[in-house]
């Protein structure tokens, strides 16, 4: 006997722990470069944060020096107040933004948009969150009352339930999610801080490759199981970054 399925778990990082002789789950990576390894041209990237709070600045900064092109970025905002996202637009490597509120838009985005060099898909904020959650939860489509009877429902299938009109919306799955957490352990369990939570937990569920920058690392067992917000199952890589607090708003 002895057919092995070893190594088939592409999502899970394990390592041989010399002192114990055990094969353990360890999703920590050394630096931002290692965290962003393997992002491909044409990737759809979920970007956590609401404004700058909870937006993974250093991962975004790393993406500036990456060579992946033709990216689709999914983010609630277009980079207002963000040090890194406008610079990423300026590289010309973002082909499309899926967004609920791209105002006020930073200059590079505004310019690319006006000259037709970047595509923009406006999605109502709650529909955006629910489409991402649906992708994470194996729901290919759902119905919502949001946007029924408006321009944003144009061309979309609608349906009546109990006399009210609803719009069918599809799951929004991604290749990569870039997440900011407050504390994380080697299994990838995450806890957020304040309103830095926002889109991060649902985005963490909805990508093939979920990459987390965390302010603090915790020992396994330090995070209370009752208070973990994102269970490690959704996380592929964790990099610890001494990022500054968000600026005063």
């Amino acid at each position, binding site marked *: 006997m002895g057919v092995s399925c070893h190594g088939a778990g592409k999502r899970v990082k394990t390592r041989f722990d010399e002192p114990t002789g055990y094969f353990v789950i360890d999703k920590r990576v050394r630096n931002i470069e290692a965290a962003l390894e393997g992002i491909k041209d044409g990737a759809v990237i979920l970007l956590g944060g609401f404004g700058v*709070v909870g937006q993974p600045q250093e991962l975004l900064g790393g993406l500036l020096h990456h060579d992946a092109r033709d990216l689709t970025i999914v983010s609630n905002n277009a980079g207002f107040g963000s040090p890194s996202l406008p610079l990423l637009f300026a590289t010309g490597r973002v082909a499309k933004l899926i967004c609920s509120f791209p105002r006020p838009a930073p200059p590079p985005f505004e310019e690319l948009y006006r000259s037709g060099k970047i595509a923009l898909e406006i999605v109502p*904020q709650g*529909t955006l969150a629910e489409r991402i959650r649906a992708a994470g939860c194996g729901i290919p489509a759902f119905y919502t009352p949001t946007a029924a009877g408006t321009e944003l429902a144009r061309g979309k299938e609608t349906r009546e339930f109990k006399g009210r009109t609803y719009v069918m919306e599809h799951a929004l799955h991604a290749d990569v999610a870039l997440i900011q957490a407050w504390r994380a352990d080697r299994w990838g369990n995450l806890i957020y801080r304040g309103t830095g939570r926002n889109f991060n937990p649902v985005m963490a569920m909805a990508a093939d490759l979920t990459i987390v920058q965390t302010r603090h690392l915790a020992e396994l067992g330090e995070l209370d199981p009752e208070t973990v917000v994102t269970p490690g199952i959704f996380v592929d890589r964790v990099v610890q970054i001494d990022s500054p607090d968000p600026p005063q708003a």
Partner: protein
Amino acid sequence: MKPLNRSEMAARVAGDIPEGWYVNLGLGLPTLIPDYIPKDREVVFHSENGVLGMGPVPPKHEIDTWLINATKQNITLLKGASLFHHADSFGMIRGGHIDLCVLGAYEVAQNGDIANWSTSQNDVIPAVGGAMDLSAGAKRLWALMEHTTKDGLSRIVERCSYPLTAAGVVKRVYTNLAVLDVTPRGFEVVDLAPGMTFEALQSLTSAQLSRSE
């Protein structure tokens, strides 16, 4: 006749919010409302970026920059507050758990249609945020807005000319000139600014008004 100023408009709305309501406030004018809620009433403010029990803007030296509201101002949390993610937050909204949402608007029509997200002009990047979710999901939607444009055109209209945020959802409109209910018979005047008459209001309003019974 003296139109209400912005503070008076916010206070006028605040006085109508009963204790115990869960309330979401849109960008702009509505964000002034919490300052005018009578101090003896517990009202719970929701911010769609994942906060219930939002407190006032803190003094500079007490700011926790990890706490912002939907307008991206720093906020505080009251005792009893809770934090949650965006899908849960919009579940509250879409699921009809928010008692009241107060939004600014470009136009409100006599059938309850609201337009507040896009002026359809090509020189402005469109942005909807949570306005469509809130309009479609809150138990009650009130609009808070200037009665007319700077050029004197009525924002209280028979039919919206701007792209809709949601159809048939506004229950009440608070303007600098009046309070109007949206009824099956169209706009009904509930209240007038000091010195304003029904006739004068009608002359400034493109939609037909009726008196409250």
